[in-house]
């Protein structure tokens, strides 16, 4: 799923900084190449400080693009120093960005396929871009987005998904909004529903969220016999560009390998972050 495209290292002006939910910010940046060439699932690597502490860039999924205006957005949870520094930057300041990086979601060519998108927490960031992308390619009526969070105020992009015109279902762990429980439970029941309603359509699953959720999505898809299940993984990254070998996850050597039952450490930044669930080995 890796695309050979033009990548840039650029100082991007910040033109918008908004708190969209408690501790969750959206930053809009100017960079025409990234706006034009990014695909859903890809990410950018952001230098949050001009100094050496913090030293490393921080990876964020491309959340939305506006190729006309040449801008793109990030959606992020302020969880540590890097995200705090990013959030504190003022409109008009510039920030160094590398991207677009990594693999993207493959939305297929089948016009009748049903697309189920699953977002957990800030996993909504790339799912938002993906939802928009599928709508444009295959039409919104075939798209369902399942959004999960701990609690109602942490549900992200709800209004945006509604605006896209896709079906939206919500799950909160505390039941404060929508289905009470994990979004993966919602996924299981939604797949079953979908199979009943559209017995002839292939189902494609796309998910982004914390690792335990990704694992559970993979399990549900396996159980339900879903052929296409794509997961976006998160790993601590040092380089983000495939050279340090730091961001690895265990993956099958692949069908074409001489040792199909062998595994290797795959670089999430370059071979991922989007993987077909069948490639991954969970521990």
């Amino acid at each position, binding site marked *: 799923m890796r695309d050979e495209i033009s990548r840039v290292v650029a100082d991007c002006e910040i033109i918008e900084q908004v708190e969209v939910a408690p501790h969750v910010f959206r930053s809009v940046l100017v960079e025409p190449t990234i706006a034009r060439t990014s695909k859903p699932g890809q990410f950018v690597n952001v230098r949050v400080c001009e100094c*050496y502490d913090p030293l490393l860039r921080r990876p964020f999924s491309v959340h939305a693009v506006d190729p006309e205006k040449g801008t793109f957005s990030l959606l992020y949870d302020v969880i540590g120093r890097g995200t705090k520094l990013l959030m504190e930057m003022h409109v008009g300041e510039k920030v160094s960005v*590398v991207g677009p990086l990594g693999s993207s979601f493959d939305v297929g060519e089948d016009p009748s396929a049903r697309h189920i998108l699953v977002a957990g927490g800030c996993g909504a960031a790339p799912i938002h871009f993906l939802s928009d992308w599928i709508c444009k390619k295959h039409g919104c009526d075939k798209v369902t987005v399942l959004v999960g969070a701990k609690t109602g105020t942490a549900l992200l992009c709800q209004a945006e998904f509604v605006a896209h015109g896709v079906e939206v279902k919500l799950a909160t762990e505390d039941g404060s909004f929508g289905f009470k429980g994990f979004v993966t439970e919602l996924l299981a029941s939604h797949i079953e529903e979908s199979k009943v309603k559209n017995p002839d359509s292939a189902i494609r699953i796309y998910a982004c969220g914390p690792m335990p959720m990704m694992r559970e999505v993979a399990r549900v898809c396996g159980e339900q016999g879903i052929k296409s299940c794509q997961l976006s993984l998160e790993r601590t990254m*040092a380089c983000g560009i495939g050279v340090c070998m730091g*961001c690895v996850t265990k993956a099958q050597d692949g069908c074409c390998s001489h040792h199909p039952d062998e595994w290797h450490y795959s670089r999430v930044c370059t071979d991922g972050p989007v993987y077909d669930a069948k490639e991954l080995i969970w521990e």
Partner: protein
Amino acid sequence: MGMNLSVEIGKIRMKNPVTTGSGTFGSGQELSDFVDLNMVGAITVKGVSLEPWKGNPYPRTVETPAGMLNAIGLQNDGVDNFISQKLPFLRQFDTPVIVNVVGQSVEEYAEVARRLDKAEGVSGIELNVSCPNVKQGCMVFGTSVEGITEVVQAVRQATSLTLITKLSPNVTDITAMARAAVDAGTDALSLINTLLGTAIDPWTQTFRLANITGGLSGPAIKPVALRMVWQVAQAVDVPIIGMGGIVTGTDAVEFLLAGADAVAVGTGTFINPKAAVDVAEGIASYMEKMKIDDVRELVGSVKTL
């Protein structure tokens, strides 16, 4: 007229004094989206071993103040795959390729060197006797005079390529290691590899690296690296490739002044994918400002206060 930026490391002629830190530039291809590989003085690729190595479990990296720890464990596809899969791409460029070599035994080091010696497009071998993240071999060789002597001698016999020995900083006396390598026939030295360190997450009360310890790199270690380059430059006569925390052109100049003939940019590439080329340009613009014609004038010319 024009400034001279070129330097020689053994038989390797570099058009500028900047190469890449092994393990921070992949096999070059990954970075070719960002930099013109003709613009760096040499490309030093990730360590290769005789057989493919899987590497260590995740997590393999952790950020530290002005630095990072890594415990990659030298994941690589082995020397044969390197030669058949990676080298052809690199041959397109007019830039010498230095291959970092690792092994778990003297014989393995020598065998990798032998295979590289026959491969077209390899200019030099950087002997990694200093990787702190692999259980057997490697670092054990690099922290004793006997170990260094043994490996360097064996590899020296296996290849006529320019042989660069990469020293570990985790020693009491770096000059003793440098002398041992020179006496055993190395053409050049590169230093420093990473400092052995660790990090703990107080909230989970666990080590942050699956491997427990890892190698510290980045700006944090620059003062130690610079000191060791200076000490080694006083002690031996072979060319030195200096590294450890270089991010900018003036960082590199500090290493040249301390006595390095060339420099490598490692972790700097993670902060700025163009760092190696930017450092080379930074050296040139420094020379322009300081009205220095030949980069070799800088080498070792630091003065005391």
